[in-house]
Structures are given as C-alpha cells and as structure tokens.
C-alpha cells in the first residue's frame, strides 16, 4: 500500500464533518438520518484504516467496523419505523413539527 495513512484519515475526517454540516443545516428527519449514516461510515473507515496500517496481524478494527455496520442497520430500521409512525400521526417528518410530540 503506497498511499500514506494520513490521506485515508483526512478523507474520513472530511466525510465526518460533511455529515456534521448536513446534520446542522437539514430539518427533514430522513435527511438527518442520512447525515448520521455519513458520520458512521467515516468512523468505520477510520477503524479499518488503523487496523490495516498499524496492526495488520489482528482484526480488532475490522470486526469493530463489521459490528458497527450491523448496529447501523438495526438503528436505521428502528429510526425508519419511528419516522413512518410519526408521519402517520402528524402527516409531516420535519423535525420542527415533531416538537408537537412533547407532553
């Protein structure tokens, strides 16, 4: 591998903070979820790169990324179920409208 490890880490840092940016500017709940997926993905890249470049004989980062993918799938399915339920109740998935769920 002749690409330095710094370049991979900078790429994942950029991806993570683009996700943060999207989480701040968006107001639709599904787009918020997509921004969170971007952040999770960037963190997975970090785990895999550290594993591959620094400890290539073990699989710690590899399995952490694998389990993070599985947990992301579970989290997305529950989040989508909640979003669809909220849409049925108040006919909108804008995060500002969901403040009506208080009390």
């Amino acid at each position, binding site marked *: 591998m002749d690409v330095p490890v710094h370049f991979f880490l900078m*790429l994942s*840092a950029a991806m993570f903070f683009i996700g943060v940016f999207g989480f701040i500017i968006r107001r639709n709940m599904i787009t918020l979820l997509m921004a969170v997926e971007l952040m999770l993905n960037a963190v997975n890249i970090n785990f895999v790169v550290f594993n591959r470049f620094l400890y290539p004989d073990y699989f710690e980062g*590899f*399995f952490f990324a694998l389990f993070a993918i599985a947990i992301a799938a579970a989290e997305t399915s529950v989040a989508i*179920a909640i979003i669809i339920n909220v849409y049925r109740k108040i*006919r909108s998935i804008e995060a500002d409208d969901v403040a009506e769920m208080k009390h």
Partner: protein
Amino acid sequence: MMETIQSFMTAMMNSVSEIFASADLTRPTWSKWIFMALAGVILLGSVLTVTSRRILRAATFLFFTLLATAGLYLLLEYEFLAAVQLTVYAGGILVVIVFSILLTSHISYRFDPPPVWRVLGGLVAAGSGLLLTICVLVLTVFPKGVAAPAPDMQQVGNALLGQDVHGYVLPFEVISILLLACMIGAIVVARKSREPEASQPDKTE
C-alpha cells in the same frame, strides 16, 4: 504568542512536506490513482448528499458514497468487509431509506434552502472541527507499519467465531440478539394502530 504561532506553522509545513514526500506523487501507481478517484467520489457524494434539495437525489448520492467506501475497503484488501458494506449498507439500508422516502414525501417536492444563519453556523462548526482534526492528524507521526499480506477468509472466519483472546464469538451472539430485538421493535413501532388516524392536512405537499 507570535513565536508559538510561528513554530506551529513551521511544524505544520514540515509535516505536510514529509507526508507528501512519503506519498511520492512523482511516481504514480495504480493504487494512488484508484485512491484519488474514490476520494473524489466520496467527497463529491457526501457534499451533494447533505446539500441536494430533492430528497431522492440525496439518497442516490449517499448510495454512491457508500459504494466508493466499499471500494476503499477493497483497496485495503478487506474483501469481506467490502462485501458486507455493499450488501448491508448499499443494499439494505439504502433500500429501506428509499422506501421510507417514497412513503413519506412527494416525489417532486423540493426543500426550501436552509436559512443563511444556519448554513453559516454549520460551516463554522464543521469547518473548525475539520481544521482542528486535520492539524492534529498532520502533526501526528504514525509508526511505519510492516507490509503485511492480505488476510484470507479462513483467518477472518476463525477470528469471528473464535473463543480465545482475539475471538469474537460473544459480540457475534450479542449482535444477533440485538438484531432480533430491533426487528421486533421495528414491527411494533411501525404497526398500524386500530384507532382512527389523525386527519390533519399533509404538510409535505
């Protein structure tokens, strides 16, 4: 104060030039070209995912970003992880997101552009975080890893179901219970209730 900033800047410049020297850009190889292409797709796809005003297009750009990430795993010679990324992320999660988009919003609906103060706040927050991270990254010296052969699938399988120090059979089982709980939870949450539903006007159209 000025001296601190000056020494910081020189340290930064030295580290950056060292990193680029170790990249050896005068001698391009296939892996460098592929990395640059994947990085371009990832950056462009991420930016368009969070800025596109049509939600289905945002999902499509997210799909390309996840595909390029799988390519990055392939470049690092983790074929199994790339396959998992493709099937679970690009295949599973994206399909669920697209279905929920089609269930909850009109296909021709366009978002209003976000207010300027919110964009500015997002840029400041994300930009300062990114700047800080990249400064720390550039100043960090990573140990020079030895060139290890790519792990084969047998090693991965033995570690995944191993019970020794580097075995992962317990997290594997815990994940399976978590997935079962999530499945039941998602069904319970998304199930249609028997009561008549609220009949408010549709705000997304």
